[in-house]
């Protein structure tokens, strides 16, 4: 296989004294959907935040498309085609839906074509077009999740990181979000989904990583993990 789009090696991440990740290695290839599952507090969010440049790596190497982005200042990482849908959505609540989306296209190469990208996002989430003028903070949880995903798409990413997209949503809304993720992947964007809704994530992913207490415990084809007792034991702690 060709060089992976995302390659993470020997990654340690700390919050002050507390180490959240130990020696984590993952790979994502062009066009793949990969999911990262594991119990609460296993370090899943830390992993994607480190990849997106929101939290610095303590040790190790993160490369995107062959370029080492480990030591780049946070705002430069997205220039290499990485966009994130953060945990808890973290949309800008006092900005309109439209402004949230357009801000997603802030990076240089995404600015000029942002009107076309916006049309593409509205195609995936028609409801956002209806709500364009509303303050994002006034939307329902599901709609906010769409804003967060749409905002990430506006950056025209090669790699989309989704951190717990199902968190706090009603089951119907979760279906919608996962439909959208599938369609985004069909357009050629590689996707990393971090989830505590293990079954849901494993259902759409090709490959999967199981994290436990800050380390990769298991990895392989998603179907394999789905039937694994290890996953069940790890997440439930039985």
């Amino acid at each position: 296989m060709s060089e992976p789009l995302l390659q993470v090696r020997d990654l340690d991440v700390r919050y002050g004294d507390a180490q959240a990740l130990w020696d984590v290695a993952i790979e994502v290839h062009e066009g793949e959907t990969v999911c990262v599952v594991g119990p609460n507090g296993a370090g899943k969010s830390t992993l994607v935040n480190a990849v997106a440049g929101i939290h610095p790596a303590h040790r190790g190497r993160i490369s995107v498309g062959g370029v080492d982005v480990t030591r780049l200042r946070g705002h430069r990482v997205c220039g290499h085609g990485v966009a994130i849908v953060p945990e808890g959505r973290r949309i800008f609540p006092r900005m309109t839906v439209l402004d949230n989306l357009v801000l997603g296209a802030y990076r240089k190469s995404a600015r000029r074509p942002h009107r076309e990208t916006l049309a593409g996002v509205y195609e995936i989430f028609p409801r956002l077009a209806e709500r364009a003028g509303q303050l994002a903070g006034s939307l329902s949880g599901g709609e906010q999740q769409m804003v967060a995903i749409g905002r990430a798409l506006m950056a025209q990413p090669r790699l989309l990181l989704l951190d717990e997209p199902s968190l706090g949503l009603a089951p119907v809304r979760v279906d919608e979000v996962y439909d959208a993720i599938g369609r985004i992947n069909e357009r050629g964007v590689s996707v990393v989904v971090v989830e505590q809704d293990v079954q849901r994530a494993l259902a759409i992913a090709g490959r999967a990583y199981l994290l436990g207490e800050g380390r990769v415990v298991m990895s392989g084809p998603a179907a394999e993990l789905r039937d694994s007792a290890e996953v069940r034991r790890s997440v439930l702690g039985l």
Partner: protein
Amino acid sequence: MNVIQATLTGALIGGLYALMAAGLSVTWGVLRIINLAHFGLILIGAYLTFQVATSWHLDPVLTLVVTVPAMFVAGAAIQWLFDRLRLTEFNSLLVSFGLLIITIQVTSNIWSADFRRMSADVNPYATQSVALGRLVFPVTTLVAFGLAALVVLGAHLVLRRTFAGRAMRAIAQDRAVAGAFGVDHRRLSVLLGGVVGATAALAGMVFALSNALTPDTAYEWFGTVFAVVILGGIGEVVGTFAAGILVGVLSGVVSAVWSPAAAPFVLFSAIILALLLRPQGLFAAGGVR
């Protein structure tokens, strides 16, 4: 009649308050820095206007050609310094207090502590007024209001319509996520510092038009301007404009109807009331767990 005149004049003077407060409010809201040195920049802007107009016999409004770039650089430099020092919101208050004291002493050393006023031959605005029926409006207050309206409108449009403006609002709400989308807050904060410095030049010019200058005036702005910032909502330019007018009208009417002595009390009560009634609304990003 008296009350109508007081209301309208107050509203116009409120434009000056808004002009002074707008920069302070935006720096506080977006960059989490309470920049008391802003008052120093306004003061220097006022003295520069006085000096340039007097020595070069320039129309005071034209002095902006000199003062705006100068204050832009000064504002950007201060912001750069704050960024370097990585100050907390509270320490920024202390450091900028120190800077303000230095500025005031420097102006006092250069221009002395005596009152300075542009003479009538260089400052045609001071003596003119516009009459509307029995109501009279000094031209200086009209200039103040007009400039304030322009600045607020401009800032509003920039913040709503441009990439840089959206990025600034995004920084105010969630700096980390904004960074993940490529927003470099260091560069933007220096730019913002410069623009805020430029508004200080405008406010200084307007103040010099209608007032005699003494270095200590900078202290006298404190109460009123912070009342405007807090009432308007930290970081809200349109709110600041409205609050400026409100405070102007309030002071004007209370002074006219009751007594000038009562004005500060009314103002102070207004701040406290605002803090009591809308505590969350006054501060940015009310995060929910």
